[in-house]
C-alpha cells in the first residue's frame, strides 16, 4: 500500500511535532492528559507503596487509562519497527557520529540489522555483565524516575503539555532538564563511555 510506504519513510521533524501535539489533543479530548511519568507513580501505588508513603495513597484505578496508554505504546513501538521501519538507519549528524565512534559507540544500525535506536554497546543483552552498562541503566533510570516526580512531570508533562499551557514552572523544569542533560553529556558521558 502506498500509505504504508509513505509513512515508512523517515519523518520530517515538523510531521513528528504535529503528531505529538495531536496525541496530546487526543488524550485531552478523551478526558485524560499527556504525561507519561505519572504512570511510574501509579505502578508504585498498584505495587502497594501506599503502605509506606501517603504519596502513593490515591485512587490509582482512576489512572488506569494512562497505564493503558503507555503500555499500548509498547505495541506501537513493535508495529513501527516491524512494519513501518525505514530501511535507512537513524540519520545522525556527522559530528555526533565521529564523536561517538571515537568513544567506541558504533554508528546506529538499521532496524533490520538489530537494535536501530540504541547502541548495542550499552543496551545489548550480551553486554549486560559490564559494570558500566549496569550503572548507566540502573543509575539513569533511577534519576529519571526520581527527578520526574520531584519536578512533577517529564518531557511530555512539562516540555509538551506544560509549555503548551504557558506554565512558568514547566519552563523552569525544562531548563532543569537541559542543565542536567548538558552536564551529563559534556562532563560525565565522555569519561563514562570510555570506561
Amino acid at each position: 500500500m502506498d500509505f504504508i510506504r509513505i509513512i515508512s519513510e523517515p519523518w520530517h521533524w515538523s510531521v513528528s511535532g504535529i503528531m505529538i501535539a495531536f496525541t496530546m489533543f487526543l488524550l485531552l479530548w478523551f478526558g485524560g492528559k499527556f504525561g507519561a511519568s505519572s504512570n511510574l507513580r501509579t505502578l508504585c501505588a498498584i505495587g502497594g507503596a501506599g503502605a509506606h508513603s501517603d504519596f502513593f495513597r490515591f485512587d490509582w484505578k482512576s489512572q488506569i487509562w494512562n497505564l493503558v496508554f503507555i503500555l499500548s505504546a509498547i505495541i506501537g513501538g513493535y508495529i513501527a519497527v516491524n512494519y513501518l521501519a525505514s530501511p535507512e538507519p537513524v540519520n545522525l549528524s556527522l559530528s555526533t557520529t565521529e564523536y561517538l565512534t571515537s568513544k567506541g559507540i558504533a554508528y546506529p544500525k538499521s532496524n533490520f540489522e538489530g537494535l536501530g535506536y540504541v547502541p548495542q554497546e550499552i543496551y545489548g543483552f550480551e553486554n549486560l555483565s559490564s559494570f558500566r552498562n549496569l550503572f548507566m541503566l540502573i543509575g539513569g533510570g533511577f534519576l529519571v524516575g526520581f527527578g520526574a516526580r520531584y519536578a512533577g512531570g517529564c518531557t511530555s508533562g512539562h516540555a509538551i503539555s506544560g509549555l503548551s499551557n504557558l506554565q512558568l514552572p514547566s519552563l523552569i523544569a525544562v531548563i532543569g532538564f537541559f542543565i542536567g542533560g548538558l552536564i551529563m553529556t559534556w562532563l560525565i558521558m565522555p569519561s563514562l563511555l570510555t570506561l
Partner: protein
Amino acid sequence: MKYIKFSLAGILFGIVMTKSEAVSWFRIQEMFRFESFHMYGIIGTAVILGAMLTFLIKKFKLKTIYGNQIEFKDKNKSITRYLVGGILFGLGWAMTGACPGPMFTLVGHGVWTMLIVIASAVLGTYVYGLLRSRFPH
C-alpha cells in the same frame, strides 16, 4: 470499552515516538551536543501547535467526548522543585537516552534491557515518595 481509545492513542504514540526518532539514544546525544536541529524541531513544532490547540480549547470551551469541560490546572508556583527535579531528570535522560514515553516504546522494539531502566525508574519514583518531605519543594 472506554480504554480502547486510550489504547489506540498509545499505539499511535509508540509509532510517533519511533518514527520521530525521539526514542533514539543517538538523537538525544546529538540534541545535547547541539549537533542537529532535529529534536529541537520536533519539540518546537509540538509546543507551538500544542499552545495553539490549548488556547483554542480554552477559548471555545471544548468538551471531552464525555461532555465535560476540558480542564487545565495551573502548576504550583515554586522554583526549587522544578529546577532541582528537572536537573536530576535531565542527568538520567542524557544517560539512558530515554525519557519515560520512549522507555516503554523501546520495549516494543525488543530492547529488553530497557525493562531494567523502567524498573529502576519505578524504584526512583518510590524512593522520592518515601523521602519527599525531606526535600525542599
